């Protein structure tokens, strides 16, 4: 298969003329009705395996969430129910989305990728001083609403906003992003490959870009933390302190589970808890991988989980004066946990992280730019 290496693998911008040349070559091949060796050979081959993010490959070659919250298991274990969604993702789309996600070509000045703010080390959340924290992307495939304030219900709209926000990637329009991606031959090859077409795509459309990025962000699934193993009967999966913490978490003394409802650890509601600087209602975030996403709250007001637990223990916004105190959700009120109970609760929150869960950060991306991760 590997006849020769395509030119554009050598860092992009310097070789634009050659890339044009290669495109002409591809067109000639296309007109001649034979497959282009440039398309067939590509250092960026898309994986047809599922990434190690809580997915398995089904018989049709699609990736589905590994999740034990099935009817069979409900028959035997005390499990909170998971609202089932038919999530099937094409592994090649996921992989293509992954390249786009880490590629700073998406931002106007080509300095920022999605991963700049959605840092894989922080379970795809991020701290942005002065702005709202970037919400984590864990189990996003189960979200009915996006953004802290839930202002959109479609991932296409969600993807568009950071690309065009002047505070973020600052593009004038999605067309300018589409144009830049279309200028990169490797992307045109990869978008062809993902559609199992032998010929390089002449034009990549915006919905095709959205589909790839969305497939990647929907692939970030986890239901395989120590908590999940524990509730499925592996009593050694959590420590004694974590088990005590789970009892506290679901007790009406704390009411944590009322809003952070297992197994997603969110009930998707938009409400006020009265965190510092909270002038309006925000979406209940999932607590999965929460140990990795400090600092906490939409503003990053708390540096540790024990600070968060202390905040709720003292009554959250209810103990504060003013607007947020008045609007605080009726489940939030002083709890009266002892120090050791606070410790147990924090220990339990650590049982919601799956440490084997990881995303491969690409060492290079099709634009030839350096992949960007974190800020």
């Amino acid at each position, binding site marked *: 298969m590997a006849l020769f290496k395509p030119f554009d693998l050598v860092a992009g911008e310097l070789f634009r003329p050659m890339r044009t040349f290669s495109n002409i070559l591809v067109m000639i091949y296309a007109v001649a009705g034979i497959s282009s060796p440039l398309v067939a050979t590509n250092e960026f081959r898309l994986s047809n395996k599922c990434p190690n993010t809580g997915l398995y490959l089904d*018989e049709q070659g699609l990736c589905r969430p590994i999740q034990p919250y099935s009817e069979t*298991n409900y028959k*035997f274990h005390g499990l909170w129910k998971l609202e089932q969604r038919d999530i099937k993702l094409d592994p090649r789309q996921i992989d293509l989305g992954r390249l786009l996600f880490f590629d700073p070509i998406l931002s106007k000045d080509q300095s920022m990728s999605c991963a700049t703010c959605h840092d894989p080390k922080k379970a795809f959340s991020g701290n942005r001083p002065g702005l709202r924290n970037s919400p984590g992307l864990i189990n996003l495939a189960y979200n009915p609403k996006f953004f802290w304030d839930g202002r959109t219900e479609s991932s296409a709209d969600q993807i568009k906003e950071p690309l065009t926000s002047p505070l973020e990637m600052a593009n004038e329009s999605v067309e300018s992003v589409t144009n830049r991606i279309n200028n990169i031959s490797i992307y045109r090859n990869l978008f062809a490959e993902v559609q199992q077409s032998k010929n390089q795509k002449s034009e990549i459309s915006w919905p095709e870009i959205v589909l790839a990025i969305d497939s990647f962000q929907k692939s970030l699934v986890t239901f*395989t933390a120590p908590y999940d193993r524990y509730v499925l009967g592996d009593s050694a999966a959590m420590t004694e302190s974590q088990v005590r913490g789970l*009892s506290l978490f679901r007790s009406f003394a704390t009411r944590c589970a009322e809003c952070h*409802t297992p197994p997603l650890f969110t009930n998707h509601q938009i409400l006020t808890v009265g965190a510092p600087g909270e002038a309006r209602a925000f979406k209940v975030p999932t607590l999965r991988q929460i140990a990795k996403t400090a600092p906490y709250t939409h503003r990053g007001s708390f540096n540790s989980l024990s600070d968060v637990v202390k905040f709720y223990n003292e009554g959250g916004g209810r103990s504060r004066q003013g607007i947020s105190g008045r609007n605080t959700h*009726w489940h939030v009120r002083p709890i009266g946990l002892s120090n050791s109970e606070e410790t147990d609760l924090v220990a339990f929150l650590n049982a919601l992280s799956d440490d084997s869960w990881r995303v491969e950060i690409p060492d290079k991306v099709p634009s030839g730019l350096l992949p960007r991760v974190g800020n």
Partner: protein
Amino acid sequence: MLRSLISIALMLITSLAFGAEHRVAPGEKIQDAITKASPGDTLILLPGIYHEGIVIDKANITIRGIIEKGSWPILDGQGKLNDGIIASGSGFTVESLHIKNYKANGVTTQAADNVTIRHLIVENTGIYGIYPTLGRNVLVEDNVTFGIADAGIYIGMCQHTDVRRNELYDNVAGIESENSHDVLIENNYVYRNTSGILAFTLPELPKKTSGNIIIRNNLIADNNIMNFGAKGAIVASVPPGSGAIVLAADDVIFENNIIRDNSLAGIIVAHHGAIPNMAKDPEVEPNPDRVKILNNLFINNGTKKLGDLVIWTRYLLKQIMSSGIPEGADESIIPRGGDIVGTKVGTNLCIYNPENLKLRDTEHFSKCAESFQANPPVTMIVDRAKLPVSTLANLGEQTYSAICAGCHAVNYRLIGPPVKEIQEKYKGNPQGIVNFAKAPVKVRDGYPQMPPQAYLGDEKLRAAAEYMLQKK
């Protein structure tokens, strides 16, 4: 005939295989017995005092107290423990216990279906006495609940629930149905609470509606005590002297109740604006619709005695101090009592015998066409077989489905390797699987080490291994 024979045979096998009894005596830990129990087992609690908060995360567990010569098994949280019983397994039954002095709830079930809570005394808990949440097919019967700082029985976001023959007194609220559907509240004695029976649709919860609630054949009397609900709780806003309140719930029927001596109102039918400080939720429709008050016996509601006025004044001061004058103040703060009090909002509301009753703000009610429901349902609980509950007869299939299938799927990798690969490796060698499962070692990179399953015992392990090897 054959079918019923088979099902009896299945029941026998199931009860033999999975119906062990575990006796617990005072001084022993109930939680230890739960750890040992398998789905289908029964815990027998002998009379005496237990200081424990227990958690049950297995399906089909029964906890049954033994009452000897009037002496009960007592779960006492001593004001220090949080919850008496938390259960999340479907098919959970608890009966014949006295549960008291917990900071949060007496008994709560969380997302469990096919729940039975019966024959309990629940006393002095900080939030709810009996609280099934997010369940389907829930039966709450023959319980006595008092001294609860919120609702004695609270049906939270459930479907198909019967609450019958319970006695509730000295609570802030007697029985409360919150964002639930298909609820029958029947034959209860609900007296001397701040408020008797509540059918609420509340904001900021994942379920956004209430409907098909029948309140029938209850005694709802003298619900006039001081509201001692915790500050900030919605129930702390519930006005004393209210027999029953419908708040934003739809399709509610009152039928054949005796409703007497409630000093504010027999029944209040309210929208959200009438309750102080109610949060606004755009997905919740805030008005009560299709509420039918059919033939009920109303006696002496909406008349305040001196003691009632004192309680009312304290309630008002507390409201104003905690939240200011609410929107719709004239409807909720100034006590204009009666048998039925409306809040001028809501559609398709009716009263069967308006000419007999003392009414306030019910101009938007029409006269109901009928005095009783023509074909009233006997129960809201549906066929349990339609909900997921174990019907597996075979020990191997039971154990496999309960334990192994959590991590092993047949054809693909779930958490551990697929069953197909295990079958190749252990063909004709079930004991090999048993030996491995008792003391697993790490075999493959990228797979978590399997947790030891020795606690299941040889019999179940062997049966599961044999089942696994022939699984298609």
